[in-house]
């Protein structure tokens, strides 16, 4: 057993990680989802103001499989899931690895509320336990889970409004310092209905267009997943891409080519909902890991 100690001491975590992945795959197979693979290396990532792709021989490593998976939705694949590697340049900390494992699934005919229910069932299936211990907390996975709007969370936990926070440029800092630590402490929490500027690929809410149909799942203060009722209007999507590209340019970031094939396909995409779930993070919560390093075989620094 001598040799690489950090690697050998992770055996228990990696065995459990493998079992969690198996349960996740079984969950989707039983629900009629097709497991798909789309290319990691792509010519045109979705422009996002605060997510940077890693360049790869003139193209980019995906930051998410979102665009290719939506092209599959547009081509008539109604229920698809993928477990894959994604890369986000410069993201590294106890909860981040620049290369990490994403679970994304997309479902035609669904909206973000359907996905909240499906996410509840998935996490319960992945955990295979009625409650979990994480960082000294006992988190009950039985329903109902907590649901709080972004507006309520800002009022409750930060004593301010979303529009004030956006105006002051402090939305993200308040989220990190005052809201995230309060979410999902006794049971998982969905925080939902984000301001449209924070949801570049989401549909606006039909009865309240001041918010977009986006939710995030938090467990034990840790962000686990992000979901949308997907925007299906190519013209609106192009405008939002242009806005995100302009924001990137204004902070000195290199532009990406426009994802024209995605935009061309979007008009044929049915009403759908999609979600990206950080599998390393889910494993962290289920195994009570302090750092993401404990639940992967190799960190970047160990290569």
């Amino acid at each position, binding site marked *: *057993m*001598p040799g690489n*100690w950090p690697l*050998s*001491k*992770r*055996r*228990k*975590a990696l065995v459990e990680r493998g079992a969690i992945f198996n349960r996740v795959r079984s969950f989707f197979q039983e629900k009629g989802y097709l497991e798909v693979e789309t290319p990691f290396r792509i010519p045109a990532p979705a422009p*996002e*103001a*605060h*997510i940077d792709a890693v360049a790869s021989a003139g193209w980019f490593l995906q930051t998410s499989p979102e665009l290719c998976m939506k092209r599959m939705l547009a081509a008539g694949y109604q229920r698809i899931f993928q477990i894959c590697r994604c890369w986000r340049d*410069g*993201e*590294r*900390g*106890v*909860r*981040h690895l620049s290369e990490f494992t994403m679970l994304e699934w997309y479902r035609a005919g669904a909206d973000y509320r359907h996905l909240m229910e499906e996410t509840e069932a998935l996490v319960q299936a992945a955990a295979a336990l009625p409650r979990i211990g994480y960082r000294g907390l006992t988190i009950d996975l039985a329903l109902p889970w907590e649901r709080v709007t972004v507006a309520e969370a800002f009022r409750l936990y930060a004593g301010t409004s979303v529009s004030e926070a956006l105006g002051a440029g402090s*939305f*993200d*800092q308040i*989220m*990190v*310092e005052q809201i*995230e630590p309060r979410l999902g402490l006794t049971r998982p929490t969905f925080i939902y209905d*984000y301001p449209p500027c*924070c*949801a*570049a690929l989401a549909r606006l809410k039909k009865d309240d267009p001041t918010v977009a149909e986006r939710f*995030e799942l938090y467990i034990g203060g840790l*962000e686990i997943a*992000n979901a949308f009722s997907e925007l299906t209007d190519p013209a609106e999507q192009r405008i939002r891409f242009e806005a995100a590209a302009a924001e990137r340019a204004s*902070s*000195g970031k290199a532009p990406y080519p426009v994802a024209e094939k995605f935009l061309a396909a979007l008009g044929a995409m049915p009403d759908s909902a999609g979600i990206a779930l950080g599998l390393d993070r889910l494993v962290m919560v289920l195994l009570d890991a302090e750092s993401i390093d404990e639940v992967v075989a190799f960190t970047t620094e160990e290569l």
Partner: protein
Amino acid sequence: MYTAADLRKGLKIAIDNEPYIITAFDFAKPGKGQALYRTKLKNMITGSTLDRTYRSGETFEPANLEDRKMQYLYKEDDHYCFMDNDTFEQIHINEAAMGDAKNYLIDNLAVDVLIFREKAIGVDVPNFVNLRVVQTDPWVKGDTSGSDSKPATLETGYVLRVPPFIEEGELITIDTRTGEYSTRVKG
């Protein structure tokens, strides 16, 4: 010059022309929001601490410190004594300014003494140091799970987690940047 992406525990930066060391660091990034680099900083002269959150795009000047190659001699009361091998000059640094470096000091260890305005304010030790284990419980034979670690006390008094196969009297390598066990020294 450093950018926010360079921030990490142990980095020394200048704030208002005074040297600060990052004693705790956390990278946070909510949802699709912007990256926040949360730090705890210690003023290397006064020892006072502060919490600062930085964002992408911010830049930092390195702390304006001079490094002097010196050798560790001994500890007396709450002072540590170092000697310049060329001039034989000796200097003393008090315990509070030593930080984690004191966990790794064995006789004759070569260190960089950090000088600010002609005053010694701290010490940089090598990234890797070899230290002997003076106390640890024996490995229970037949335990091949590979998932456990156990505490060990080193010759400097520092206590850390090591693999179960490490025995008393063995020499091990410590990564001083993390304070963690790195490998066993053969022979």
